């Protein structure tokens, strides 16, 4: 087969391979996105029979809507804190589980348990653990903190529950990433006289960089859309100090039936996430070129 024809058939195979994924994206992302975009340009309130085009009015409203801005702030804080903690903890856990020891299989399965829970159950469990009257956490720490009802503590309770739930995901991905780093590299560094810390920072970490960036990218997108944990633990309270963007959108859609404004919130949050992803992907490409 000539080289050109071979390449041509490879390209064809490539398109075929991509087709299912692209179809899925078109059906479950682009189509709903288009519908949501269309809705965001309208005032659509079924309760009042209102459905008309209003252009960018909804967005103009959001720009000066204190509730939207505060939900953005809350969400950004949660994303930054959660992802940072999950990365560090996940890395520690992955390193711990990378070694061989008896019972490793069980340890790996055990570490995945938080992620294996339905989120609503996990959040409810944390709600109980942090509850003022019966909270095990308060009893163990010997304090009387109002975890879920204090405007300053509540958001940290949300972060705690989210970190507990999601660290296994980070750990799992990092562990998989660690598996493909050949041991010889580490051994070579040892021969060169490098200590454990140096080996980690100079050899392992750079090779893990692509995995780390995937973890940060997806975890931050997930954290940005945080919903179940906030809904169950605090309901967005007290006084909307823990309300996330997703929760605000949910309230607009399903509690007040303002589909237009809710869609505008969704699109606005998509734009923020798209900007963030662009930054992350840029970093990811840089690391590839470097490695």
């Amino acid at each position, binding site marked *: 087969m000539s080289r050109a024809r071979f390449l041509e058939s*490879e*390209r064809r*195979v*490539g398109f075929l*391979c991509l087709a*299912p994924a*692209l179809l*899925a*994206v078109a059906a*479950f*992302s*682009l*189509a709903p*996105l288009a519908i*949501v975009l269309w809705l965001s340009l309208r005032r659509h309130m079924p309760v009042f029979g209102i459905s008309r085009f209003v252009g960018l009015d909804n967005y103009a409203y959001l720009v000066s809507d204190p509730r939207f801005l505060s939900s953005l702030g809350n969400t950004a804080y949660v994303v930054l804190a959660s992802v940072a903690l999950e990365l560090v903890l996940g890395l*520690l856990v992955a390193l711990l589980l990378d*070694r061989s020891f008896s019972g490793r299989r069980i*340890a*790996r*399965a055990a*570490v*995945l*348990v*938080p*992620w*294996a829970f*339905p*989120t*609503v159950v996990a959040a409810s*469990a*944390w709600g*109980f*653990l942090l509850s003022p009257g*019966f909270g095990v956490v308060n009893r163990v720490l010997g304090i009387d903190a109002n975890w879920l009802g204090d405007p300053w503590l509540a958001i940290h309770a949300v972060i705690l529950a989210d970190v*507990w739930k999601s*660290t296994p*995901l980070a750990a799992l*991905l990092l*562990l*998989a*990433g660690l598996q493909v780093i*050949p041991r010889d590299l580490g051994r070579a560094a040892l021969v060169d006289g490098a200590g454990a810390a140096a080996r980690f920072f100079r050899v392992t970490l750079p090779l893990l960089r*692509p995995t780390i960036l*995937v973890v940060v990218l*997806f975890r931050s*997108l*997930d954290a940005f*859309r945080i*919903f*179940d944990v906030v809904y169950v633990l605090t309901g967005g309270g007290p006084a909307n100090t823990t309300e996330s963007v*997703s929760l605000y*959108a949910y309230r607009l*859609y*399903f509690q007040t039936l303002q589909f237009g404004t809710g*869609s505008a919130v*969704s699109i606005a949050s*998509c734009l923020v996430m798209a900007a963030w*992803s*662009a930054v992350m*992907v840029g970093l990811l490409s840089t690391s590839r070129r470097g490695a």
Partner: protein
Amino acid sequence: MKRAILLGAGLFLVLAFCLGPYVWLLITSLRPPAEVAADPAALPAALSLESFRAVFSERPFFRIVGNSLLVAILSTALCLAAATAAAFALARLPVPGNRAVLALLLSVSMLPPVASVGPVYLAASALGLRDTAAALVMPYAALSLPLATWILHGFFRDLPADLHRAAKVDGCTPLQALRKVLLPPVAPGIAAAAILTFIFSWNEFLFALSLTSTDRSRTVPVEIALFAGVHEVPWGEIAAASVVATLPILLVVAALDRFLVRGLLAGSGKG
């Protein structure tokens, strides 16, 4: 020696943190329901399997677990098939604009699920798929696709170029090269993606609530949400159901664990 103790302590802390709430749920599920209603956080005074009995005899829980299993397995299979193919194409085949495609896939992860529930429900309605497992399989596979593709893309990308070249020299078509030579080394990635997709499908709530109505298709998270009454929350039953619901996941993880092992790369290099 000191290092072993440090590592042991670290492991213990990690396990305690991860398993703490689970242990509490386990204990709660083994207490008599009346006790739980009185004080959910106390240490058990007596043990009883009443909560488990209630979960299985008063509710169609077996059926529900069956629904969840069906949906999770199908969506995982579909998602992995599509993601592996896509990742392979993006990483190793001369397809134009692969960065753009990766970014496009990411867009699925950016739309808050609350926004897509409405349109998906309407579509499922129109196709006559309301209250069926099929209605859930497709959205779940699609929602997990970006992460799975990105994970696998990374693994395919990091494979040595010689592998693919050697396969081509041997006369393999692209798909044969994929099957015989390139898949084994990316096994950890596939295992990780499979576990994550399975768990996601198992625990997803919003779509399940909107697209299912009877126990014909209802999945575990929605069923657990039905346990709570208007005011009282039967923590014993919820705990029992959660304990049972976590078991299939632990089994899946244990089964796929052997792929999360290094050394497969070395094996394929010898070919």
